[in-house]
């Protein structure tokens, strides 16, 4: 809170009755919100609660159907990012808005001078950036290309962009989603300095822990409506969670594991790159009755590992051993034959075919089996029965097996994939980012099914960028960094910070990495 200003509580921003509809969906329903000078307000809510929409309206990316925005006592014209910038609002988007093959400096000065001028004023700009960086702990070299920067550094550039324009109100959309625990700490330190300098911050998040440590006040959105507002100091974690979910937070019990024999093993596997890092000399064992969690910052080889295990990427060297037997040719077909259940990372791109029906999608891995064919022709009746079974057993909300998959929500789509992957009780399960973008209820559901599979003796590999998820579910944790694995640690053995260190590449052995 700010004391050097006469009045203690001067509102710098006031949203009144903001409503926004996308077709039949009401993304924001009469939301009002105010922000004071030197205050951090957390905007808490699940995916799809309307947080990002609200902030996009504030910033002028969307135009509200109803409602007013007042900044420093003046009404903000709707749908005009330029006006929002001029009024002193700076926004750090979840997906960075940086031009990659340009320098930090060019990205920052873009749009800050009149377009028609013969001078970029690089000298003065560099000076100002250096000063801001030093003042707020945002060190980054102004002359480096964005492509050369880490994710954390890119976020600093985004914050610098706002500060360079003298923003007084800073909006951060899920800023910690892509950061390591250390980078998150640094971000919070920066925020504290900004608030001390009199800026106001809106911090969008769905992580309760963060919200509690960083904010003065919490505004909770649920289903596009304002669900409640609390002083952070007065609110319990449980209370906030219930406001966010609109009821009891589902809790999964996970018992002690009873590890069995190794069902799937990689020995000295190297691959080519698949966008991110390539795997280098990776060895790992997946045991029955255990969930093995793979933590790591995105782009460190998770994609290559997932593709390798599902059979879509061939190893350059190394062995794959399934059920104690060395496999000569590993392919998607071989993976299915040997009982591998796959939950792919991107359900829209590789998990499901949006324009095909639910029935077509659920048999897409098994349409050749005798179960779904009669005299060599597809047996649509059997397919529909199977689809109905999954719909019932996994509580998928969908009108019929003939519905287009595109029309389902993310959570329902994921349940379908889960049903398809877990059909026939596979004993090896690959789950890549199985809960990304799902709401709390769906997350709990997916977790419960994975625990169930583990308890019946399956070997589960959970690849996730969400450390909370990894720590909650995994009996054994591996950390991947630049295509190499750390030594495995058991549940509870390492703290978040220690895992963060491993994710940042500290403590990885050079050369071969082993996991047993």
């Amino acid at each position, binding site marked *: 809170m700010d004391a050097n200003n006469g009045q203690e509580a001067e509102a710098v921003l006031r949203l009144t009755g903001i409503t926004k509809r*996308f077709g039949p969906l009401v993304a924001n329903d009469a939301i009002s919100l105010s922000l004071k000078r030197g205050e951090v307000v957390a905007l808490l809510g699940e995916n799809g609660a309307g947080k990002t929409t609200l902030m996009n309206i504030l910033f002028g*990316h*969307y*135009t509200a159907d109803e409602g007013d925005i007042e900044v420093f006592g003046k009404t903000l014209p709707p*749908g005009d*990012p*330029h006006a*929002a*910038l*001029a009024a002193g609002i700076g*926004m750090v*988007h979840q*997906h960075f*808005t*940086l*031009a*990659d*093959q*340009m320098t930090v400096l*060019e*990205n920052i*000065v*873009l*749009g*800050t*001078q*009149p*377009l*028609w*001028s*013969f*001078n*970029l004023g690089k000298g003065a700009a560099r000076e100002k950036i250096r000063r801001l960086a030093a003042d707020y702990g945002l060190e980054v070299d102004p002359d480096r290309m964005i492509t050369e920067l880490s994710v954390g550094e890119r976020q600093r550039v985004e914050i610098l*962009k706002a500060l360079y324009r003298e923003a007084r109100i800073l909006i951060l959309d899920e800023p910690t989603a892509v950061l390591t625990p250390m980078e998150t700490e640094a971000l919070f330190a920066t925020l504290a300095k900004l608030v001390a300098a009199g800026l106001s911050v809106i911090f969008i998040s769905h992580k309760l822990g963060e919200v509690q440590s960083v904010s003065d006040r919490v505004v909770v959105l649920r289903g596009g409506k304002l669900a409640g507002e609390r002083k952070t100091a007065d609110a319990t974690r449980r209370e906030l969670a219930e406001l966010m979910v609109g009821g009891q937070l589902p809790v999964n019990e996970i018992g002690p594991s009873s590890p069995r024999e190794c069902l799937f093993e990689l020995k000295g596997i190297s691959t080519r790159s698949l966008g991110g890092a390539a795997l280098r000399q990776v060895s790992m064992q997946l045991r029955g009755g255990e969930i093995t969690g793979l933590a790591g910052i995105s782009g460190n080889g998770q994609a290559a590992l997932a593709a390798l295990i599902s059979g879509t990427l061939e190893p350059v060297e190394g062995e794959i051993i399934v059920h104690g037997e060395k496999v000569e040719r590993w392919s998607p077909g071989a993976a299915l034959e040997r009982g591998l259940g796959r939950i792919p990372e991107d359900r829209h791109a590789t998990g499901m075919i949006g324009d095909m029906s639910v029935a077509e999608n659920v048999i897409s891995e098994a349409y050749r089996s005798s179960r779904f064919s009669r005299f060599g022709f597809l047996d649509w009746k059997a397919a529909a029965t199977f689809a109905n079974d999954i719909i019932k057993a996994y509580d998928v909300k969908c009108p019929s097996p003939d519905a287009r998959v595109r029309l389902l929500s993310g959570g329902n789509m994921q349940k379908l994939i889960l049903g398809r992957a877990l059909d026939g009780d596979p004993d090896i399960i690959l789950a890549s980012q199985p809960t990304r973008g799902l709401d709390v209820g769906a997350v709990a559901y997916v977790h419960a099914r994975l625990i169930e599979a583990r308890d019946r003796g399956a070997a589960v590999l959970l690849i996730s960028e969400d450390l909370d998820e990894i720590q909650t579910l995994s009996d054994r944790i591996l950390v991947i960094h630049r295509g190499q694995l750390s030594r495995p640690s058991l549940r509870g053995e390492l703290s978040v910070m220690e895992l963060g260190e491993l994710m940042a590449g500290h403590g990885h052995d050079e050369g071969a990495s082993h996991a047993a």
Partner: protein
Amino acid sequence: MNEALEILFTASFWVAAIRIASPLIFATMGELICERAGVLNLGIEGIMVAGAFTGWFTVYMGGDLWTGVLVAALTGAMFGLLHGFLTVPLGLSQHVTGIGITLLASSLTYFTYRILLPEVSSPPKIEPFQPFAVPVLSDIPVLGPTLFNQTPLTYLAYFTVAAVAFVFYRTPVGVAVRAVGENPSAVEAQGISVTAVRIGAVMVGSALMAIGGAFLTMSAFNSFFFEMINGRGWIAIALVVFGSWRPGKALIGAILFAAFDAYQVRLQQITGGVIPYQIFLMMPFVLSIVALVVVARRATYPKALMIPYQKGER
């Protein structure tokens, strides 16, 4: 064999190379500006035809040569505006629209030519730009006579490259153009209109393409023929890739290609019909493909090239 090498050391060869390069330089810079802003402009071939005609026709009707250049540029800018309007706010396929612009611009030009000049059998002539020796610079040994004893339009081509490079890397508007081709949301987030920057860039680029066309009718030759652009627009598109979307490298590419072209004409004369002349005609194109394979494989292209940007609604 010696004869073949001697060609490379004659001043007339290099003078011809620079002359052949000039329209390519304009066209390549034009395409480069469009693509740097994220818009592929396949209308280039037709826009060059249109510029070649309108520039020439202005002079034929009694206009000043520079007025002709200006008219050509405006013609190009208008087709650029059309291409920009269809591809930027409407977000139509840049390939399809571009090919449409090429067909429209060239056919419209031939049609207009026939309507305006129905009775001519041999193409009417104008008094074109004359070579102008730049004082002092043209006295530099070797370089002087080749680079600085050209027509004023060639000097304008040199200047264009320098100007494009300067604007791109030294001015706010250049930063905006490059950013809009890399990540339009970066530009939007900084309060600049993506649509305005892209359409502006396509118009300026198309104007340059049209001047490249006009070079042929007003400087290299003195009349307008059908088919006279003859694929130069398509070559410019390859040259942009060859130059990795950088003005300086693209300039080198244009001169290299032109040198190949000038060389093959002279080689044809030496070999005197032993080798079919088509082989020589083919040479610059084959070499440009080879050069593309070697040079352009690792080029970093503008990230938002050919991706329309739709603001707001989801």
